């Protein structure tokens, strides 16, 4: 494979600087039948997340008498990507992402309030352009908050990576495929706790610290977008009477 030039004069292929995010917009509750839902556009990523429950855990053997169980299903639509990612149904990659996403929310939701029940989180990628697991977690957090399920925190996720010697934030599809490392991280912003950390490729310790700092610095912006999306429907109604 030929080496692709991903950084020219400090600018990336889509014109961003190293620590710049793609444009993000979040909408809360676009799906009427779900207990809570959200839609995110993160660059060219278009993702829906919906939450159902808590409800009786079925099949019965999956339930836990002490706490609720989280069942997460991340899937990519057959038309979401030009390459092999767009196969319908659950594949190895989708099962892995579903598992790590469920583990992010297990640490955040107050599970002991609903013994024996299950909470379903569905993440559907309509169009993918790299970093969909991070965008999916950010979107699902909004959906959970909109459904009223009690949570300790509102997590967000971003990926960082490395191109040559430069650490970059929020990789897109081409950067993801040809970069030297990809590190998706989910953070609970109140205490800055890391609840997801995966690393594909190699980073030195210094590079890793730079990447994590970039992710935490970008967090306040993403968190604010999540909060704005949640508050917007209420403020819209309030405006009518001011």
């Amino acid at each position, binding site marked *: 494979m030929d080496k692709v030039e991903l950084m020219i004069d400090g600018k990336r292929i889509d014109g961003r600087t190293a620590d710049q995010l793609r444009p993000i917009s979040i909408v809360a509750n676009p799906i009427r039948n779900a207990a809570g839902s959200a839609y995110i556009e993160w660059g060219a990523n278009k993702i829906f997340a919906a939450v159902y429950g808590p409800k009786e855990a079925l099949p019965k053997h999956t339930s836990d008498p002490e706490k609720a169980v989280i069942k997460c299903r991340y899937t990519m639509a057959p038309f979401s990507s030009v390459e092999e990612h767009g196969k319908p149904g659950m594949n190895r990659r989708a099962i892995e992402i579903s598992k790590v996403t469920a583990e992010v929310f297990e640490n955040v939701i107050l599970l002991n309030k609903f013994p024996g029940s299950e909470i379903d989180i569905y993440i559907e990628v309509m169009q993918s352009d790299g970093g969909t697991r991070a965008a999916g977690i950010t979107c699902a957090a909004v959906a959970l908050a909109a459904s*009223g399920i*009690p949570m300790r925190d509102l997590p967000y996720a971003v990926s960082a990576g490395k191109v040559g010697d430069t650490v970059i934030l929020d990789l897109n599809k081409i950067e993801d495929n040809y970069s030297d490392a990809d590190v998706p991280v989910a953070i609970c912003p109140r205490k800055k706790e890391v609840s997801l950390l995966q690393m594909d490729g190699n980073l030195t310790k210094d590079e890793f610290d730079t990447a994590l700092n970039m992710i935490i610095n970008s967090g306040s912006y993403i968190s604010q977008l*999540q909060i704005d999306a949640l508050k917007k429907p*209420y403020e819209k109604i309030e405006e009518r*009477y001011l």
Partner: protein
Amino acid sequence: MRKIVVPGEIISDRPLRMEGSIIEDGKTCSTVMGVFDDEKGTLISLEGLWYPRPGEKVIGIIDEAKLNTYTVNLQAPYKGIIISKYTEDIMANGDIVEAIVKDVDKTGMAVLARARRLGGGKVVYIKPSKIPRILGKGNTMINQISDATKSSIEVGMNGLIWVKGGRIDLVLEALVKIQEEAHISGLTERVGSMLKEKTQ
């Protein structure tokens, strides 16, 4: 001052014991989307789930009639259960019932008492977090609606509302209006004027 809070937001530097919040490191932190009033020290959730509490009135739909019990769908995480010998009515699947929560067992299932079958009518589901607003202070809001529309209305704390007779369309319109605008003050007057306008 009232403000809208989101999960994970620190709402007070002091530990306050409120529903929908947790105390961590001596600070109070919200766990739900809600309206926090720092003068009164109250947190009212905007979106939320219903947890059964003894003494609450609920409306449910019979899910299954068993030999000596009925299981009731309460549109909540957990089912309700009616023990046949404590009710005089004979019920079938799909019947609408009104009952009082007598007890909540360890698994979260609500044991219901004083169950009564409600004949006819329609059932609507409203977000359980808006039910206190639908009832109003001392049931003023719901009395106002039933007086204006001449409908008989039974409100369950789990979010199911049974309506029979009168102007059902108007009742539904009022309920949806309350659900949407519950977090803004002066609601009783607004609903009152809407009902007055529509019934003339």
